[in-house]
């Protein structure tokens, strides 16, 4: 038997609930369609897809939790554990590799100190950065590229440019400590 939807332990902020209602209204034919949008909304608000997220979204859409869980586990953008404050996605695919995408990734690794199994996202020990390779970001003409949070950065083909890119995103206005 699937776990029964339960009401979340903490009360959710009213602006979040209002946004959720508005999102569901975009799908007059089927509330289930709001699964991806609500996962995005949750992740943007709370940082990652917790157990609570799965249960709450399922209940909100009248679904069993497995329907939400199977979606959350399929799509690469959803993550089930907290990420660093700054999230870097380096394009791994061909046009970027031809232009130095591998070097971009290695430099980012050195600058952020992120380590771990590179098949998935890796994190810096201080929890400040999460770094991962992703597939073609649809900006192959300005390769190599990466996204830092929601911003695309193009033509990052020298260590100086990469450092400058990272500095614009550093939390609290602090430049990245490593050069």
């Amino acid at each position, binding site marked *: 038997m699937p776990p029964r939807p339960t009401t979340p332990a903490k009360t959710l902020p009213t602006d979040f609930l209002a946004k959720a209602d508005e999102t569901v209204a975009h799908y007059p*034919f089927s509330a289930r369609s709001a*699964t*991806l949008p609500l996962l995005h909304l949750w992740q943007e608000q709370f940082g990652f897809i917790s157990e609570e997220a799965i249960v709450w979204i399922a209940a909100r859409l009248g679904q069993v939790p497995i329907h939400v869980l199977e979606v959350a586990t399929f*799509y690469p953008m959803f993550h089930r554990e907290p990420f660093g404050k700054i999230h870097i996605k380096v394009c791994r695919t061909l046009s970027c590799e031809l232009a130095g995408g591998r070097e971009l990734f290695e430099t980012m690794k050195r600058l952020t100190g992120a380590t771990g199994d590179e098949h998935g996202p890796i994190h810096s020990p201080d929890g400040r950065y999460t770094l991962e390779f992703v597939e073609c970001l*649809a900006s*192959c003409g300005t390769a190599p590229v990466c996204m830092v949070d929601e911003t695309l950065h193009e033509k990052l083909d020298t260590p100086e440019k990469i450092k400058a890119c990272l500095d614009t995103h550093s939390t609290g206005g602090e430049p990245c400590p490593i050069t």
Partner: protein
Amino acid sequence: MPIAEKRLILKNLDEPGYTADIECYIKHGGYESLKKAVKIPSAGLINEVKVSGLRGRGGAGFGCGVKWSFIPPASNKPILLICNADESEPGTFKDRQIIYKDPHQLVEGMIIACLAVKAHLGYIYIRGEFPGGAKILERAIAEARQKGFLGKSVMGSGFGLEIFVHRGAGAYICGEETGLIESIEGKRPNPRIKPPYFPAVLGLYHCPTIVNNVETLCAVKHIIAMGGSEYARLGRPNNTGTRVYCVSGDVVKPGYYEFEVGRITLGELIYDVCGGIRNGNRLKAVIPGGSSAKILKAGERYKIKEKMPTGSVFEREIGLEDIVMDFDSLAAVGSMAGSAGVIVMDHTRDMVAALANLNAFYAHESCGQCTPCREGSLWMQKITSRIMRGDGREGDTDLLKSVADNIAGRTICAFGEACSWPTQSFVTKFREEFLAKTGAAKEKNSEEGSL
């Protein structure tokens, strides 16, 4: 002498001072096509698009007007329209330009398409990695609504229409139209089998659904503006209109360029438009239509049949540089126009490494429903990466080819072909490189073995 671009879709978006807001769009003649379209009955709009000869810009090149007329006329289900803004075929970056810099062109095209197919609800499925693009489109939709171009009565015509933006979340297979539909339904994007699931008949929520690419919908706006027959004069017969070509890789000036379809050759695109191969290197290979398209090798000769305006057919031999960049010509040389993403590689490039990169992409992106695709894409990736590590085995070259040959044609969706074409073409055309790598590796292995 560089060939002049023919900018129809890209006309305004790079002009200095051009912004994404509705006032700027209207100042540049925006929504004039919609004004025209609301006065034309649905059948008339579909007919204009049929007459225009427009073929889909998303990859398959299917006739747009023909697709629209597949909606069962007697159906009493609601009709839906989806804009495919998933843009995730490696090498393709044209829809991004439209979405970020000229969103109203897409919104206008989409409203006209909805009028034509009588869809009262539309979704723009935008890839998750365009968070800014999603916000820009949402704002554009809100602006259009405020002006009365969307909502209960589109420009007072009595036709109600709502459009919403739906964000993907990083999966390439959501670009495949039936996977996309599953994704909007809130599920894993496992593609559906055709037949029976042709979206125009059984699509989103099992209702008739039209799925069109961003650039295709923008072209619709221009077709209504200029008239279908006038649009059909651009380009070549059966390959009409303009197309945005995206060039990346080893050229001096990579970027996006719009030309009349088939009024430019691959050689002109690489050498005249993009300034040739960078660092003074020589051309080695080109992937002409997104990463799934079969690779073309410099120096190759192709025998093609050409139809004369008189109807007579004659055969001639051409080189890679002479290939005309349209649907039919690229198919004739054994590749495809696909998404018009052109990836250029110079003579210093290692073809095994390039294929290893692409195979990693396909292994990661297979949805996993069909055994040949799920296992085959992973197997091909394992082989090419072990060759790259120097652990290639004798016979790996032929093994790669045979794995690929056993995927295509045996799967639910066209991803099966998409993931096997690179391997099939790379291994066939650059066989010596693969043999040399596996041969050298074999020597290394046996040396190690003898220690």
